């Protein structure tokens, strides 16, 4: 008896959700880490989606239909992200998926989407493997780890000219991938990688590993971390007075305002790779940045810009699609060729990646307690500071 009631309820829900598409609303469920360790990033992404949603609906929505977003909390855990994705595809019959933040979660969702032949667009996850698996249904808006640091490397090879690098990275997909790519890129440019040390996310005391770094005396210390680790690393580097020519971060934790709030004066002069900044000349970038700042008090990080632009990409694909099936939407996504606040968006298959959008990356530096764009100089909001003062000389 119970089984029949459950079956009937499931049928009702399915019919209801399908009709959601048929009426003059398009309802999409978005998985994000709204609580847990990555909550800060989830929050930035959600706020940006809200801004984009308002703008799209104000201009008439998608082919006259209003867009409606609802969010599911994956808590930053891949197992939960996976079950949310399964629910969205199997129960709600949503023909297109996007968002999630950490590489681990995006990988889990991508696997589900590919299995179920539903298009999924990654918006902010960096691990290269996600678009290197010959998946047909997975697209990625943001550049990958291998390209994250291009702007930063440009700054390093033109201005800093280091001979040696030490790399510290957190142990999940994001950190491992980021460290690998940075090591390869440094070797290619003739910089010696003195050490490449992994640490467990959430570690309390980095001083043992940092003492080793101090002993190795590298020119540049490059770190790949999420926010709390990034803050602790810089604080402990300041405590140990490790003087390097440059402290560099691989985006993520280093590129959001919380890093500066938590590390305080230890964050000054730290340079980080980033995918976007409010100063880039793409259409709508400045307006979005100002709108976000007015609503929430600070400029959005690149995660916000990616989220904001991703909704426009999805809306664009939905407006061009021949029908509402997964395959039609997949084809519409693949044919995307538009300008967004994040830059030009065109999904290409090259260099071993499939359905990947390639974009320029930049470098930020923390100056006067704020993130300023310093590289490439055509986008700079402030002049970079190099060489940076030693710890003892800072007040």
């Amino acid at each position, binding site marked *: 008896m119970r089984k029949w009631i459950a079956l009937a309820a499931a049928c009702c829900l399915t019919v209801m959700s399908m009709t959601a598409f048929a009426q003059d609303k398009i309802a999409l469920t978005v998985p994000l880490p709204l609580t847990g360790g990555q909550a800060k990033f989830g929050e930035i992404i959600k706020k940006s989606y809200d801004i984009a949603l308002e703008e799209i609906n104000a201009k008439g929505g998608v082919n006259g239909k209003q867009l409606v977003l609802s969010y599911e909390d994956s808590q930053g855990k891949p197992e939960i992200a996976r079950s949310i994705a399964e629910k969205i595809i199997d129960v709600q019959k949503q023909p297109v998926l996007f968002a999630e933040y950490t590489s681990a979660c995006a990988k889990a969702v991508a696997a589900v989407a590919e299995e179920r032949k539903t298009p999924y667009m990654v918006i902010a996850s960096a691990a290269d493997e996600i678009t290197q698996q010959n998946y047909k249904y997975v697209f990625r808006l943001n550049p990958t780890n291998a390209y994250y640091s291009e702007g930063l490397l440009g700054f390093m090879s033109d201005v800093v000219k280091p001979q040696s690098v030490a790399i510290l990275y957190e142990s999940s997909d994001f950190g491992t991938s980021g460290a690998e790519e940075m090591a390869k890129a440094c070797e290619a440019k003739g910089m010696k990688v003195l050490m490449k040390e992994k640490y467990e996310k959430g570690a309390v005391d980095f001083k043992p590993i940092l*003492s080793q770094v101090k002993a190795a005396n590298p020119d540049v210390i490059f770190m790949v971390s999420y926010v709390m680790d990034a803050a602790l690393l810089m604080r402990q580097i300041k405590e*140990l007075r490790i003087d390097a020519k440059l402290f560099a971060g691989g985006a993520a934790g280093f590129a959001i305002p919380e890093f500066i709030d938590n590390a*305080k004066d230890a964050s000054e002069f730290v340079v980080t790779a980033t995918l976007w900044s409010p100063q880039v000349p793409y259409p709508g970038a400045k307006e979005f940045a100002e709108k976000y700042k007015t609503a929430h008090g600070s400029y959005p990080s690149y995660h916000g810009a990616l989220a904001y632009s991703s909704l426009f990409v999805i809306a664009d694909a939905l407006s061009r699609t021949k029908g509402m099936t997964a395959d039609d939407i997949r084809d519409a996504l693949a044919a995307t060729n538009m300008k967004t606040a994040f830059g030009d968006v065109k999904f290409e298959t090259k260099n071993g990646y499939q359905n990947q959008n390639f974009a320029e990356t930049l470098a930020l530096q923390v100056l006067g307690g704020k993130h300023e764009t310093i590289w490439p100089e055509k986008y700079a909001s402030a002049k970079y500071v190099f060489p940076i003062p030693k710890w003892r000389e800072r007040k």
Partner: protein
Amino acid sequence: MWVQVEVFMQTLVAGILLGGLYALIGIGMTLILGVMKIINLTHGQLMMVAMYIAFWMFELFHIDPYLSLFIAPPLLFVLGVGLQKYLVNPVLKVESILPHNQVILTVGIGLVLQNLATIFFTSDYRSTPVDYASSAWYLSDLWAGTPVEISLSLPWTVSFCLSVSITLLLWFFLAKTDTGKSIRATAQDKDAAMLMGVNVSRMQVITFGLGAALVACAGCLFLPIYYLFPALGSQFTLIAFVITILGGMGSTIGAILGGLILGVFESMTATYVGMGWAPVGRFAIFVAALVFLPGGVASLLKSKKLTK
């Protein structure tokens, strides 16, 4: 060569400072274990509760975490007393299938505390970014020509010094006051103590409260150094347990030495083997203590007639 000396010295200093904090965490558990023969597996979660109290004091009233040392431990004392009186004691009295069901009870309490924190405060990371968070004292400031640079981080050093003071206060309490002596009597032989007129059940209740208050002190000291989230507790329960075994169950001096040994060992493992190996080092020392030194450091001291 001096570079290697510097790495070693810095690691040693970091290990000792870490050990001081570990010792404070371990003492509470060993006290509870000694007096009531209960392994308090909610120890880490009690620390987490204290850290949340200190965090909200900072967020709402701008009270420095070190000043919360006067706020959180008394509150946790009351919580500990309440838990012992109304949850643990009744369970102790009941005959049940499991001989040590009070241990499982503490696990349950820990889970409830952790999940309540997740519901009320969400699992977002919280921190108290105080101005002195990355200040330090440097050897090269005192001795300009030093071949090695040693830095003593301010929050770590303050936490170490306060841990030492609190431990001394505890020793004074246990050795010199009537209540303290009664607690020790209960730990040595419960029945004899009862015959001598000690109110054993009250001593047990006070001890649980005291253990909770001690780990609350550790929490307040730890907050400026790290950050806070509900699932923080379990790793510290484990550390407390390792220290209790290493130091000898019930021995406060053992817990102090055990904490220092563990801190230094973990630091050395992190530097010379690899950072991910520090937890392995912790377990290695745990197993070694169980196999080679079952009575812990305390038994070593006893056999050398250094303590009674």
